[in-house]
């Protein structure tokens, strides 16, 4: 089975949201994804990185790490931060829930990640950080 992996670290600046999703898309390109599959991955990565910037580090600059792994046709993306963490993961994952309504957030970030990827796992410890693991199996041949 074909395997490959990469790791990316960058400061939690909003300018890097675009950079991060483009890098993951470029890495995933070796799986010959469809345009739709690549758009799904970009959107999910953008949501996870935005969460780390807004909620994890709350505008302060910290490090965001993205690790990607390819196993056969399966792409695993792990987005992690060492930010303030999530107190109540179940509540945070509810559609339309946002802890920052004043920022005009839609509360749809986790819902988008869940919908656009095959699976989503969120692990978080307050004041330690958050780790989001997303998996997508590419259907294209």
């Amino acid at each position: 089975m074909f395997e490959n992996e990469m790791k990316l670290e960058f400061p939690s600046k909003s300018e890097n949201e675009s950079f991060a999703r483009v890098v993951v898309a470029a890495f995933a390109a070796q799986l010959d994804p469809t345009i739709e599959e690549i758009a799904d991955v970009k959107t999910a990565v953008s949501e996870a990185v935005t969460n780390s910037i807004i909620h994890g580090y709350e505008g302060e600059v910290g490090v965001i790490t993205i690790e990607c792994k390819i196993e056969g046709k399966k792409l695993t993306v792990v987005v992690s931060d060492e930010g303030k963490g999530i107190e109540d993961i179940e509540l945070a994952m509810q559609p339309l829930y946002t802890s920052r309504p004043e920022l005009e957030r839609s509360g749809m970030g986790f819902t988008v990640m869940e919908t656009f990827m095959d699976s989503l796992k969120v692990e978080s410890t307050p004041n330690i950080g958050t780790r989001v693991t997303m998996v997508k199996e590419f259907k294209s041949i």
Partner: protein
Amino acid sequence: MILKFDDIGKALVVKMSGELDHHSSEIVRIKIDNKIEELGAKNLIFDFAEVNFMDSSGIGVVIGRYKKIIQYGGKVVVIGLSPKIKKVFEIAGLFKIIDEYDDLSKAVSSI
């Protein structure tokens, strides 16, 4: 993200080009709100034809402007949605409150 405004009398048309994410949404929201106030625009038409990426930050931008416009009895409609942007709209249930049209003339006649 580049914004072009067109005041067509009945509505303010906001043509966006580029990527609508958390980074770009903050300035987009300020520019649109300033234009709405400057023109006293009642209705708003979002043209997404040249938006090549949008995540849930874009949902916040659309809903935020919708809340503002309906306060004065106005309407918000969208045109130019690509399949990938339409998918984000669908997940958020945006079509329950905002109608989509094939082109500008149909959007204008709906208002």
